């Protein structure tokens, strides 16, 4: 791999242990994937923030990096954490809160913004054609497919190393020739809502593996809804992007998806045998301002039923812009949790055994990560289940 004189000097340790370790990570990964050089990035997004998924092991490494004066060189955002201080923090014991705060503290020392969201593109939209090192898989697919910003699917540690060096190895989807579709998928049904788009994602993730599908027959719909496709395709498979049209596709493998397959996928993901779930959860990936508005409209005059919780997850950034919506949702008995991801939160410690959601990604992960049975349904049906009467 070609290194500039400056990079070589960092590699040899002239800028200290932290920078040396980080550039060694990037160079070794670059060698593994046949990159010829490092390229500058505009931003990084680091996953591996929730104490529930991280455990104690990473804290030592993060502290060692911060102690060795590691500082990010580009704007770097952070994925959601396992609890918030307003609501879940009050329900959970101290020994779960303190290590979480410690993790955030170490990231803060290194200069990462405490964005705590899986939707960093709502905080600052990346420019078309710009390069990034993002580690949240749903955001990776969203950025590549809907925003034309370029990023590989990083792991937590490699995104952090890229943030500290301000560069990433030039391989994979950072190269034009690797962004071409190599499988064509024809949708032979009209996908009606975000849940069906999510189910398509789960189905495609399983069938296309790490290929890039060109999807023909997607409905004209909002990015909010397509976000569900992005999250789900990344959850069940390794695809980093998809295309909408097939005009540029040469002869590729062809697949088709019909209404029966979509219905079957939703049924397979909905294993809870109840219509009164313990938790109704909206906001995976985190809600946009528009989604907050829509939830608020459907909440007017309603009251969350006893025995059911309603959680709406978003970023602190969107919450601040959504002041009135937050008030109305909370007046109806719902909880707007900012900076939290339900999938990596301690739901099982709160007695939650069934989760109803409009997110196929959540339904896909809930049985293993939350030890909960999911129910997958569109937004209106989720809210209907949350309310009395």
């Amino acid at each position, binding site marked *: 791999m070609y290194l500039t004189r400056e990079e070589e000097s960092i590699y040899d340790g002239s800028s200290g242990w932290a920078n040396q370790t980080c550039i060694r*990570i990037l160079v*070794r990964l670059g060698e*593994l994937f046949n990159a010829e050089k490092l390229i500058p990035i505009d931003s990084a997004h680091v996953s*591996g923030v929730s104490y529930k*998924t*991280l455990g104690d*092991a*990473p804290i*030592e490494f993060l502290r060692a990096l911060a102690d060795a004066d590691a500082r990010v060189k580009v704007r770097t955002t952070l994925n959601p954490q396992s609890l918030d201080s307003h609501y879940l923090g009050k329900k959970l014991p101290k020994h779960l809160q303190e290590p979480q705060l410690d993790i955030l503290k170490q990231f803060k020392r290194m200069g990462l913004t405490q964005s705590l969201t899986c939707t960093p593109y709502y905080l600052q939209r990346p420019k078309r054609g710009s390069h990034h090192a993002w580690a949240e898989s749903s955001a990776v697919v969203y950025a590549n497919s809907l925003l034309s910003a370029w990023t590989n699917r990083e*792991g937590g540690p490699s995104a952090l190393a890229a943030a500290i060096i301000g560069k990433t190895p030039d391989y994979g989807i950072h190269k034009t020739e690797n962004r071409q579709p190599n499988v064509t998928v024809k949708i032979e049904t009209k996908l009606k809502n975000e849940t069906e788009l999510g189910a398509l994602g789960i189905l495609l993730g399983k069938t296309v593996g790490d290929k890039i599908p060109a999807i023909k027959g997607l409905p004209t719909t909002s990015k909010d809804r397509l976000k569900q496709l992005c999250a789900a395709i990344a959850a069940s498979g390794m695809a980093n992007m998809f295309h909408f049209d097939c005009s540029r596709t040469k002869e590729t493998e062809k697949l088709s998806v019909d209404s029966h397959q979509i219905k079957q996928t939703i049924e397979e993901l909905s294993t809870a045998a109840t219509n009164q779930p313990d938790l109704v959860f909206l906001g995976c990936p985190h809600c946009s301002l528009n989604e907050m508005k829509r939830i608020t409209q459907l909440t007017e005059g309603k009251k969350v039923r006893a025995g059911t919780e309603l959680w709406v997850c978003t970023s602190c950034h969107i919450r601040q812009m959504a002041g009135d919506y937050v008030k109305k949702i909370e007046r109806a008995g719902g909880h707007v949790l900012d900076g939290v991801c339900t999938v990596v939160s301690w739901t099982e410690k709160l007695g939650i055994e069934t989760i109803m959601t409009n997110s196929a990604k959540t339904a896909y992960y809930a049985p293993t990560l939350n030890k909960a049975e999911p129910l997958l349904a569109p937004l209106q049906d989720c809210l209907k289940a949350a309310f009395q009467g």
Partner: protein
Amino acid sequence: MDGTCTAEALVSAKPISFLGGVDPADGRVIEKNHDLCGACIKDKVLVFPHGHGSTVGSYVMYSLAKKGLAPAAIINQTADPVVVVGAIIADIPMIDQLDIRRIKTGDTVEVDGFKGVVRILKRKENLGTCT
């Protein structure tokens, strides 16, 4: 990756996930139905096809090293990002692109991470007939 060592080999035919698959408190493999389940990786030349699972696994490798529970070296058939990053931050010599079937558990092996060379210094004595 840099570094040399000589130690006893611990060989697995299965991929290893350091997150959830290895107990960070004692260095034992805890993944059920794994061919190394119950074995301790501390100070061994750990030989396995490749890593899998969460990238948090890299941090687990660092934590094991800080507690003196890390393997002395790692030999992989194919390198993957989780183990590669873990070996760098935990300072574990690592070699990949090797036919790992030639190494058996109990063999004494020398790993030279600088040159990318593995030498089998001593075969484990054959105590019985294997079929």
